[in-house]
């Protein structure tokens, strides 16, 4: 699989001129497995939405390494999807074949087969005709992972994939994340559990409305960094002056 590198250059995303996250520079190495960590309100989801092109940049640029939006697979936070929508598990999973079948073409036997395999890989064999409203939070997350499997994207972005998910489901889904990493895909995941990050994610971007550290997990999650992150995320001022970063802050 061809691999892609994603570079951030002084990226700032603002709401009403207040930065949700600002002056982020650095890159996600090709095939890397990175956790994006930081306190609530640190700008993690905002940064990923900006990477997906969902939010405009107030400043800076993102170089997606020649990849188009179709090369990205995105798992939104659970709260962003209406789980009472009258669809079946199969309806959701086959959306993952969008690149192959688009808006109009029917499912080919090969794609149907892949969808079956994806459901099997997430442990939901036989669930095809179940309505999503009858699934537990963990089962629904498995369905979304199956959709991602079918999507076969080069870069996979997961926004809080394990929030409110039980230990067994988390373990199964982490195995899938590990497999994506072995395949050479770039995986970026917003996570809150530091033990889990240390156990499974070699790289970490620690955010607190700006980059605290971006590099190997053991150094990024040092106690002093975590303390700084906490202080900076709470630093919100209605009348803050115009932001003028000192020379040399940009990487």
């Amino acid at each position, binding site marked *: 699989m061809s691999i892609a590198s994603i570079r951030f250059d002084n990226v700032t995303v603002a709401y009403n001129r207040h930065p949700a996250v600002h002056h982020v520079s650095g890159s996600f190495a090709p095939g890397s497995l990175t956790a994006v960590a930081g306190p609530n309100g640190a700008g993690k989801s905002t940064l990923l939405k900006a990477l*997906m*092109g*969902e939010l405009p940049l107030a400043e800076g640029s993102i170089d997606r390494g020649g990849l*188009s*939006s*179709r090369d*990205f*697979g*995105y798992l*939104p936070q659970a709260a*962003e*999807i*209406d789980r009472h*929508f*009258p*669809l*079946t598990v199969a*309806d*959701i999973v086959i*959306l993952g074949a*969008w*690149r192959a079948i688009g*808006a*109009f073409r029917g499912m080919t036997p090969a794609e149907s087969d892949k969808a079956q395999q994806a459901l099997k890989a997430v442990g939901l064999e036989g669930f095809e005709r179940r*309505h999503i*409203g009858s699934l537990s939070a963990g089962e629904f997350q498995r369905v979304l992972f199956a*959709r991602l499997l079918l*999507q076969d994207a080069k870069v996979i972005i997961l926004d809080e994939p394990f929030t409110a998910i039980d230990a067994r489901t988390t373990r199964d889904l982490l195995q899938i994340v590990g497999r994506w990493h072995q395949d050479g895909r770039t995986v970026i995941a917003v996570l809150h559990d530091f033990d889990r990050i240390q156990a499974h994610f070699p790289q970490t971007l620690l955010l607190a409305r700006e980059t605290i550290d971006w590099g190997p997990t053991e150094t990024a999650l040092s106690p002093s960094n975590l303390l700084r992150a906490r202080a900076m995320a709470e630093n919100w001022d209605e009348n803050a002056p115009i932001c003028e970063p000192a020379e040399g802050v940009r990487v």
Partner: protein
Amino acid sequence: MTVYSMLIAPFADYGFMRRALVASVALGIGSGPIGVLLMLRRMSLAGDALSHAVLPGAAIGFLVAGGVSLPAMGLGGLVAGLGVALLSGLVTRTTVLREDASFAGFYLTSLALGVLIVSLHGSNSDLLHVLFGTILAIDAPALCLVGGIASLTLLIVAAVYRPLVAECFDPGFLRAVGGRGSFYHLLFLFLVVINLVAGFQALGTLMAVGLMMLPAAIAQLWARTLPVMMLIAASTGAISGFAGLIISFHYGLASGPTIILTASLLYGVSLLFCPSGAVRRLFPRPHRAG
């Protein structure tokens, strides 16, 4: 009274009843599936707002044609409805107002403008026609328009079913896979507006949305999958049209409101007897083992 004289004779004997029947059945079949999608997007009241927004366009059509001309008023209504839909979308994207608030702002302006135009240049009975519809006065061209809109709606929904549903369920996903979500959102709003224009011919701007949302609510109470919901919505809309006309004919009631009240009756019965309804709550059955 025989079954024939009760159910068939009104349509066999009177041309205006036949045309009203075809119009209301077509309206139910076209609007039902659209109403289901609108409801699932949590835009039920946006449909109501859009139906009011159709008025100034219809009023201008009325002025240009120099009287009640359904094609001219339909075209005007289409332009006005789409205009309000697009402006509301623009305001939602560029300001802090949510979609419901921006719809409310535009439709009230639009409704007031429409009533003003009609009252300046028309009579009170013209205003009543526009507000409450004239289903018994539908002529052949208007019938073709209503039928054409229902057919076009069903064809478009069938052709773009997958992206329409994907855009409705998870718009972020569709954007991510490059599925041109905003195009389908716009196409959907277009379908809503043309169905409201069709409904406006028959039921007036105040009740046009009735055959869209009541059958959709009924469908959501009974069905758990989208295709079945659309089927139930389309058939309850059509049944309401038929039953409402029969009742209004025999009891001398106004047809438009009777059709909507028939749908309301079905809605009330559904609230009582649907799987999550009042009767099941009063008489709970033992739960299953797995």
